[in-house]
């Protein structure tokens, strides 16, 4: 049955506004400036207050009804705020819940449950004015108490939540009135708005009643969709929430099927039995669909770098000259062209080119094996009888452990092995499950691996987790006091112009020290059937697109 559409309340900066603000002071500053003067919904814009009857349906345009099927590659193991790690889970959680703010598909901060955000000049106090009249799926009104409860629950270490670390620096959460929350920080954390403020808000009374474990199986949020049926290994089905505060979503049913095999995801899209692949297809399949007018394929640049984290604490990998020589020995463009169908960009920094902090004028390691050999010679690593370089009896040899069954990235390790061998470096290959690699690299018991990980994102340039000596994901075991100092300083400053010089220097040190062998920023390819309308134009963040599903409709 067709239902009447609503026009939506403008919640975010326009693209033009954002770019202007970025030019002036970065996305956070742009966001804060916009938040200070929110555009109120006006009757002329057709915005509907919660519970208000929708306007008459125009002859053409959005239509209500239908079912959209997405496909993920692994099971949706839970649906609470603590399950937002894997992309396939995040896309469902953020359609059931809403955070105060979110990072949208243009890598901009966007207000959701907050209608206004104020940050004190010292960066220690965040005041959120909340939308009024927002309802949870059970009809209860959303208030500041729900925000306080959510933040207090997930930041409490006793509750063992995996997202507790997102709340670094948060001192207290206070309810000022029904629609105002103040978060006081013990220390400035410039990454606050993209970390803890994006946590989905739970229904406090219900969560307290049923507990975290039960909640993750039967959540109640304020999101545009409510849970209809959840079979973790098969599918998750959501249905439209009529009283959603931004208006009822157009599509009645959103469903995500678990389809582990990428070729089957491709066939399902071709046969029309699914509309989109949340987890990308094989690159060659996505490229094939780009030529097909029945599909829309978005290419967005990943925040993460595909890289070889090298254990810098090993004596043979400790010298930066060795690591720099390895960068010269790797033909990174060939890796992209031959093994990744050209769907990536060579990385020349730890930050993606999509970040306003990205520096394009840094030292570059163009493929030059002769230079690599000369550098190794100069550093005292001489070629032994077996063709492997050695110094003081130590072989320039190490093992790269890739994820078991990772057929996509394993060939990259194999090509790198050949290229490094040409300059006298021996890289052995091994495989292990991902849990083993995470533990081995974090604890420094493994030499090297190969995966994608962020060293600062397009929205927040902070690389504490990966480059600070105390970072939980410092896989390189990298220790540089100046880097630590800069990272800590960067987190204490809020304004773009204050932060920029810090992240400029961080990138410079990263490129000079080469703590990891950085290869490329992959192009993330998300495919949609062209019957889905209302999709964004030129998005910059592939997975973030899915949180806007409430804006889409189906046109057969």
């Amino acid at each position, binding site marked *: 049955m067709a239902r009447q559409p609503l026009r939506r309340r403008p919640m975010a900066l326009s693209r033009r506004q954002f770019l202007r603000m970025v030019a002036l002071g970065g996305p956070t500053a742009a966001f804060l400036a916009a938040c200070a003067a929110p555009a109120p919904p006006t009757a002329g814009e057709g915005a509907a207050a919660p519970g208000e009857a929708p306007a008459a349906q125009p002859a053409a345009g959005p239509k209500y009804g239908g079912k959209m099927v997405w496909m993920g590659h692994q099971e949706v193991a839970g649906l609470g705020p603590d399950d937002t790690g894997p992309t396939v889970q995040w896309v469902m959680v953020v359609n059931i819940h809403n955070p105060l703010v979110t990072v949208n598909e243009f890598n901009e901060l966007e207000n959701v449950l907050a209608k206004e955000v104020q940050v004190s000049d010292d960066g220690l106090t965040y005041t959120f004015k909340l939308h009024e009249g927002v309802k949870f799926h059970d009809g209860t009104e959303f208030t500041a108490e729900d925000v306080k409860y959510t933040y207090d629950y997930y930041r409490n270490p006793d509750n063992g939540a995996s997202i507790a670390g997102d709340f670094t620096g948060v001192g207290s959460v206070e309810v000022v009135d029904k629609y105002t929350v103040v978060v006081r920080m013990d220390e400035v954390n410039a990454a606050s708005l993209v970390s803890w403020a994006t946590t989905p808000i739970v229904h406090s009374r219900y969560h307290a009643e049923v507990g975290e474990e039960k909640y993750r199986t039967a959540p109640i949020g304020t999101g545009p969709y409510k849970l209809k049926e959840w079979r973790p290994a098969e599918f998750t089905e959501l249905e439209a929430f009529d009283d959603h505060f931004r208006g009822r979503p157009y599509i009645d049913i959103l469903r995500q099927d678990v389809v582990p095999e990428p070729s089957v995801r491709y*066939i399902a899209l071709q046969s029309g039995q699914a509309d989109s692949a949340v987890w990308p297809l094989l690159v060659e399949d996505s490229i094939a669909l780009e030529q097909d007018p029945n599909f829309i394929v978005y290419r967005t640049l990943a925040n993460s770098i595909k890289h070889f984290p090298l254990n810098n604490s090993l004596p043979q990998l400790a010298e930066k000259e060795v690591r720099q020589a390895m960068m010269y020995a790797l033909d990174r463009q060939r890796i992209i062209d031959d093994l990744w169908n050209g769907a990536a960009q060579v990385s020349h920094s730890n930050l993606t080119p999509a970040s306003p902090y990205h520096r394009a004028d840094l030292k570059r390691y163009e493929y030059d094996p002769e230079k690599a050999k000369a550098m190794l010679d100069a550093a005292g690593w001489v070629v032994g009888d077996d063709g492997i370089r050695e110094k003081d009896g130590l072989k320039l040899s190490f093992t790269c452990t890739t994820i*078991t069954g990772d057929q996509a990235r394993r060939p990259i390790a194999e090509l790198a092995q050949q290229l490094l061998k040409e300059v006298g470096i021996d890289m052995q290959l091994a495989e292990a499950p991902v849990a083993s690699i995470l533990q081995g690299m974090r604890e420094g018991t493994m030499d090297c691996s190969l995966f994608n990980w962020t060293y600062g994102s397009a929205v927040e340039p902070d690389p504490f987790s990966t480059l600070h000596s105390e970072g939980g994901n410092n896989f390189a075991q990298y220790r540089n006091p100046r880097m630590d100092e800069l990272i800590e300083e960067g987190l204490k400053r809020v304004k773009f112009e204050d932060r920029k010089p810090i992240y400029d220097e961080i990138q410079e040190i990263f490129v000079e020290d080469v703590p990891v062998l950085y290869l490329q920023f992959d192009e993330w390819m998300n495919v949609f059937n062209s019957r889905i309308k209302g999709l964004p134009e030129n998005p910059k963040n592939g997975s973030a697109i899915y949180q806007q599903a409430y804006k889409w409709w189906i046109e057969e």
Partner: protein
Amino acid sequence: MIPYLTRRTLQGILVIWLISVATFVMMRLMPGDPVYLLLGEGEIRITQEQIDAIRRRWGLDRPYHEQYLIWAWNLLRGDFGDSLIRVGVPVRDMIFEAVPVTAKLNLIALAIALVVAIPSGILAAVRRNSFFDYLTAVGATLGVALPNFWLALMLIVLFVLYVPRWIGELPLVGRIPPFGLPGWQGYILPVLVLSTEQMAVLARVMRASTIEALGTDYVRTAYAKGLPRLTVILRHAVRNALLPVVTVIGYRIAFILSGTIVVETVFALPGIGRLFTDSVMRLDYQVVQSLVVLLAVLVVAANLLTDLAYAFVDPRIRIE
């Protein structure tokens, strides 16, 4: 009979206990720590306090022998524990949701395989070196040689993409889904893949054992007595030739898991094969341990039933 059953049951319990200990030890010996998987990527700082809290929450801070005893005791009481990954869902529910999918797939596949393989094997044996015999041999060789993974993908391409283009929807069947179990149609392709290999193995065994039986003295005697050919084949030769087939069926139960992992992954079916691989990769201790013990029980029971079936098929075998 009763002393035999008691002895075999006690042996079975011992085997299951040893398997439970071995699985527990192997899971703990596997490199990697599930806590690191639970922590995920989104961390700004991971503190020891946070790691300890997660370990405490899941009982991973207890000594290994205590972890084993708690798990084993709970298992005996029917409590399989909670999944580390699928938080809030009891392992028992996860397993009992997956078992029917795998069981249905395998039983239907086995039934089809038997219906096709036994007559084909008998006919091929009776008409040795005929066209039908050669056809069965080629079919059986292909059935064993074709990898399940390849066959599954080819069938999906054929039935999901090409058949609808060529002839539209199939009569009575309709649209065949590329994955999942939206209806009974979802079973068609996975069952076809699983039964192909079983059919091939069973047809070859049936043919070989029938040929052997047809050459025995008792078959010659039966012919000499003037019995009709059909009676000799069905009542004397085939009944004896079925023994190796029963052995193969019992033996293959132990391979259900390995056989269905590929099929369940390609067709995205929520059976025990996929549950097992997902749980191993994500170090979901409770699920892997419980599943292995359950399969051990199944295999021990299947072996016992196979031995009992011998007595039924061949009256010369007495269970003592």
